[in-house]
């Protein structure tokens, strides 16, 4: 282990390490991605420390587990800031936790860069110090795909689309972003389902989709439901020309969980292990060394947070919780552009990133980036093979 939870350490070593307070959902509903983010943070800290730290000070990460509970996330940040007197805070996972956490950070004037609060609502709370360290907010995840589909010649263009989305601000955001753009382009919405997180049986939803027999199936999903939906669609022999699901397919467990059905599924992805971006390969290598296995998007997002802060600290030359320093950091982040492992990032006034997600597709069992053209590693296969 690189870092222990900070509870044991004595406060007040201001001039020693730069202490970063983080609460993450290490247990509960979001524990899996929470873990990914944690690893991303750790890889980043490891690299910074290997290079001599921030402003010559070592970086020390203080983790708390909020058990995916918004109550806890705010009390965690509260105590990290007031009791542990951390110098900086990094965000937790999931829009649901980011909002309460950001509230706390705001009220203590801390800059708040977060790896995973993509839902549109996050940016509508009037936060002034929040920045989302990924290419795009949920609604814009499918932008490249939408452009692609809209530009297709009329005879190839899908005419009907079915949407099924998990009742979660992020997951719904992705599906609705695409839906709105496609609907505007005249692609008819034939099914539009929202299911609660408790849903375990996807066959009936699939049956509904089957009855509408759409050209395009879009899932606003996390992992479990993505797998459930794909399997159910497969069983009910729904054969759309294209199937897009968010989040689920980007996780390494996915292809195995749907046995073979993964082929040609597309999904938005903010990061790629193979992309030739500054620092990306270094991060992948370091991750492999530290944790074994491949990093995923969550880890990359965590790493990105670190990169942004690192650059900002380097630019304004301070890393302490004083309002002056935090103001400087905030200002810098707002106007600068950062070179990160997810590509260059810049932010609007509400902290929204202004870039876009890439689109990945399983081609011959491998994840390939198919959109946009600048980043593509393979061509988008359309229409998809039957599953």
């Amino acid at each position, binding site marked *: 282990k690189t870092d222990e939870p900070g509870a044991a350490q004595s406060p007040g070593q201001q001039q020693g390490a730069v202490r970063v307070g983080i609460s993450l959902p290490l247990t509960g509903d979001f524990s899996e991605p929470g873990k990914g983010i944690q690893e991303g943070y750790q890889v980043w800290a490891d690299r910074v420390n290997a290079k001599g730290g921030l402003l010559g000070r070592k970086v020390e990460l203080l983790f708390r587990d909020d058990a995916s509970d918004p109550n806890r996330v705010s009390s965690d940040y509260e105590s990290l800031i007031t009791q542990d007197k951390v110098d900086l805070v990094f965000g937790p996972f999931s829009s649901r936790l980011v909002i309460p956490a950001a509230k706390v950070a705001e009220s203590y004037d801390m800059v708040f860069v977060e790896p995973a609060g993509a839902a549109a609502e996050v940016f509508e709370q009037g936060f002034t110090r929040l920045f989302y360290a990924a290419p795009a907010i949920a609604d814009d995840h499918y932008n490249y795909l939408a452009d692609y589909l809209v530009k297709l010649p009329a005879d190839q263009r899908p005419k009907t689309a079915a949407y099924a989305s998990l009742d979660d601000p992020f997951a719904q955001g992705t599906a609705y972003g695409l839906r709105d753009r496609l609907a505007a382009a005249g692609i008819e919405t034939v099914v539009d389902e929202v299911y609660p997180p*408790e849903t*375990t049986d996807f*066959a009936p*939803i699939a049956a509904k989709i089957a*009855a509408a027999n759409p050209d395009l199936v879009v899932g606003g999903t996390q992992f479990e439901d993505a797998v459930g939906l794909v399997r159910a669609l497969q*069983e009910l022999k729904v054969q759309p020309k294209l199937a897009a699901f968010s989040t689920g397919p980007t996780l390494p*467990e996915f292809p195995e969980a749907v*046995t073979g059905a993964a082929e040609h599924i597309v999904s938005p992805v903010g990061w790629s292990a193979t992309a030739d971006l500054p620092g990306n390969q270094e991060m992948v290598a370091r991750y492999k060394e530290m944790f074994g296995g491949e990093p995923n998007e969550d880890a990359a997002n965590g790493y990105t947070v670190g990169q942004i802060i690192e650059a900002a600290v380097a630019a304004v030359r301070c890393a302490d919780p004083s309002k002056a320093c935090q103001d400087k950091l905030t200002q810098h982040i707002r106007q600068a552009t950062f070179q990160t492992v997810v590509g260059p990032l810049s932010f609007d006034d509400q902290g929204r990133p202004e870039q876009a997600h890439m689109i990945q597709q399983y081609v011959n069992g491998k994840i390939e980036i198919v959109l946009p053209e600048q980043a593509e590693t393979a061509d988008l296969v359309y229409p998809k093979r039957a599953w």
Partner: protein
Amino acid sequence: MVNLILQGLALGVLTGGLYALLASGLSLYFGVMRVVMVAHPAFLFLAAYLTYTVHTAFGVDPFLALPVTVPVFFALGVAVQRLLVARLAPDNLAMMSVLLTFGIALTIEGLLGTFYTGSYRSISMEYATRSLTVGGVSLPYDRIIAFAVAALTLGVLFAVLVKSRFGRALRATIQHPEAARLVGIPTGRVAGYGFGVGLATAAVGGTVLALITPFFPASHWVWIGKLMAIIVVGGLGSVVGAALAAVLLGVVEGLVLVTVDATWATMMFYVFLFLTLLARPQGFFGGRLAHRF
């Protein structure tokens, strides 16, 4: 539309079978032993994880894990009963058992999270992705298998409880332990075995579940409400009632899902629960005895 409804109906029946299997164990503890077993779904997922381990380690079909999981769970059930449940004071067994098993559920979830991490696991077999098409209605094989396994398990359970000497001894033990001892029933052992049988159904249910849905340590919470609703509608303790209610609710859920939406479909469970309470608090199949002498 007609086709859609038929499809919903078919899926509902098949899912209902699965619900029936999952609820049967609960109904057993409840009716036969007056224990509210909140941890049952947690054990289901424990079984799912074990199946997963056996499946990935040896590459065998998940159903071949049953000869391992069923006896293990049986033994586990005996242990839980003898070491924990048996120590509860009988005067408010229902209440205490909720808390006890709630604690057990947390314990299991924590352990699963520690050993398997919080990530999703799933088992998928080739046959689980295909389906049988009858008159425009697709019947997925994995659901058919689940239904068949459920029916078989329920049949066996019913036979054990109602027809066998052991079943009689078990019920006698619960209803009047002192009198049961006096007719020569080894009550301690019998109660332990009863619990074991309940958990054995969890082993079977967990295997089936592992086959058709991905799971992670906290998955069990979702199931508690649904399964509980089923056994109340069916009449507490009536294994047959639970099975019928399970199929009924499965069908209703399926139909509502295809015609309205998922929120309403889940809501149906609770709507039915409250309707049951208003109309027939003892459930539709369970005969509660009036203690009014």
